[in-house]
């Protein structure tokens, strides 16, 4: 607001430059405060929407403040960019379905990182003979984080969208090659800080960072995507922060730091939820060697119990406590609305339905919560791992919909399993377990699931959406 009031004054008189600069800084301060309040509002679901609208106002203030900058003399390219960006961004914001949220966020990281990287490249170009050492350090971080986020996010987008295979792509000596490339890039960076005037080296550093982004995501499997998307979120933030250091802009630094902290925290939470270290996720290539021991355990000789929708409908109709365990399969089948409809049928008959959400269910943090919220499931029905794990004993029926690794007892019982030690949902404590699944294929980790052979577990094969529709029809007739 202050900036707006100052506009006529600064436009009228030339010497009022300090006032103009102060105005810009005040809009940045207001923006920074509004962003923090916006993030704080996310601690309460009911207040969150309002808070983030304030954050959007903060962004608007920062943009208006920047347009007062004394260096800005022409507006045609600015307006063109804003118009084009809005034309592309609007449909990305309004029409992308909730099921496609992980890939949408991944591609959005790419755009943010692209902007930061281009600003970095242009800044370097503008310093004939190389920028000062400190600026070079900031620019180096900016283009390194930026460039690897561009390609890394695009790879993540490809894997989530399905045009790049979701299974890890690995080869011999991969980690050694990656680490060498990483060390070489950092070496160039260090050299450039000491002696900034080498454009060839600068662009080599950018190109190598682009390559690192690709190589970093190639060996990471679909189930590890929550960690990668969080990490890229963090890198996009750090790139923005480095931009702030390079051009001496505080609001960039503040936002980048918020973003970096958030992404870092989420990646740590996700890694913890899988009982794996950061390094293990990045360099471990989950399921790369398809665990011969598990596959050779004679799984083929055992049989699973398959049930019809009618049987399950009867169980559900008379159940008092039902717990639904959704997984990535629910997102793929886009059946969250059917899940909710079935739940209301159960509730109509006097049962209660709860939802058990594993932290890494789906392809990004909170993925399941968003889908269920879209289907109008009240959020007090959604339970975290710790909250629900001792309630499975009281459950009459557990419905596992498209989840696999997060309910695999091997995580507790089989030290040779690649997912050993990962906290899982204790669905095997329930009276009856029904797994909705397309086929007997293993989960993303490539691990056989003992649960399916459990005495109280039955399989309802088929596409989750049509299975659920059948269940809804059948339960109405019980």
């Amino acid at each position, binding site marked *: 607001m202050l900036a707006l009031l100052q506009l006529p004054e600064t436009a009228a008189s030339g010497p009022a430059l300090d006032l103009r600069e102060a105005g810009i800084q005040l809009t940045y301060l207001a923006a920074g405060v509004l962003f923090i309040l916006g993030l704080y509002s996310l601690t309460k679901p009911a207040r969150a929407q309002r808070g983030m609208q304030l954050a959007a106002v903060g962004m608007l203030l920062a943009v208006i403040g920047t347009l007062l900058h004394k260096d800005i003399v022409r507006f045609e390219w600015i307006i063109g960019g804003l118009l084009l960006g809005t034309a592309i961004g609007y449909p990305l914001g309004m029409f992308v379905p909730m099921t496609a949220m992980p890939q949408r966020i991944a591609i959005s990281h790419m755009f943010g990182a692209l902007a930061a990287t281009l600003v970095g490249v242009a800044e370097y170009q503008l310093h004939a003979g190389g920028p000062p050492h400190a600026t070079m350090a900031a620019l180096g971080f900016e283009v390194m984080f930026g460039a690897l986020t561009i390609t890394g996010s695009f790879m993540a987008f490809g894997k989530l969208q399905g045009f790049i295979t979701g299974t890890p792509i690995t080869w011999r000596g991969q980690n050694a090659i990656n680490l060498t490339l990483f060390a070489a890039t950092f070496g160039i960076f260090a050299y450039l800080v000491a002696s900034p005037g080498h454009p060839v080296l600068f662009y080599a550093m950018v190109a190598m960072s682009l390559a690192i982004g690709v190589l970093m995501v190639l060996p990471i499997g679909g189930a590890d995507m929550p960690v990668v998307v969080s990490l890229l979120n963090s890198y996009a933030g750090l790139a923005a922060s480095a931009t702030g250091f390079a051009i*001496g802009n505080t609001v960039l630094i503040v936002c980048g730091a918020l973003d970096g902290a958030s992404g870092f925290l989420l990646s740590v939470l996700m890694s913890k939820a899988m009982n794996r270290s950061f390094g293990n996720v990045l360099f471990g290539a989950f399921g790369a060697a398809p665990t011969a021991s598990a596959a050779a355990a004679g799984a083929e000789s055992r049989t699973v119990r398959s049930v019809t929708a009618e049987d399950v409908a009867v169980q559900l109709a008379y159940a008092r406590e039902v717990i639904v365990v959704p997984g990535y399969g629910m997102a793929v089948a886009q059946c969250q609305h059917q899940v909710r409809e079935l739940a209301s049928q159960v509730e109509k008959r006097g049962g209660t339905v709860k939802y058990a959400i594993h932290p890494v269910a789906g392809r990004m943090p909170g993925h399941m919560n968003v889908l269920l919220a879209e289907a109008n499931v009240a959020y007090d029905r959604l339970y975290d791992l710790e909250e629900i794990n001792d309630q499975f004993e009281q459950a009459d029926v557990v419905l596992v919909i498209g989840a696999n690794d997060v309910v695999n007892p091997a995580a507790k019982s089989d030290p040779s399993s690649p997912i050993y030690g990962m906290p899982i949902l204790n669905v095997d404590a329930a009276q009856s377990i029904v797994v909705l699944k397309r086929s007997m294929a293993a989960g993303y980790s490539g691990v056989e699931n003992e649960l399916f052979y459990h005495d109280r577990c039955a399989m309802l094969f088929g596409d989750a959406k049509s299975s659920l529709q059948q269940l809804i029809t059948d339960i109405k007739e019980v």
Partner: protein
Amino acid sequence: MTITLLFVFVLAGFVGYFVITRVPPLLHTPLMSATNAISGISLVGSLVLAGANRGNLATLLGFIAVTAATINVVGGFLITDRMLKMFKQKLPGGAAGADGAAKAVTGGNGAAPRGETP
């Protein structure tokens, strides 16, 4: 100067860390899309690049950067708003009314930079 900026960075990082620790897992996806929208703040740097007379290359890079950052900002805030609206509606009786305000603010966000034409 650089040291002052480092102060800002470290303190903002701390604030971010402690605020975000309190965000429940329920809202982790909106959190991610919110921080993504906020990281579109690179727009600020891009605007100066596109608007200053620093040669054709700088203007071209600036133009692409403004476009990319605007996609990030507009798309990011809109989708965050869409998601948070869904979570808000879960409160009994708290659903109606807020919708109109939401549209007004986010619509304004997308449109206003354009209104800033000299």
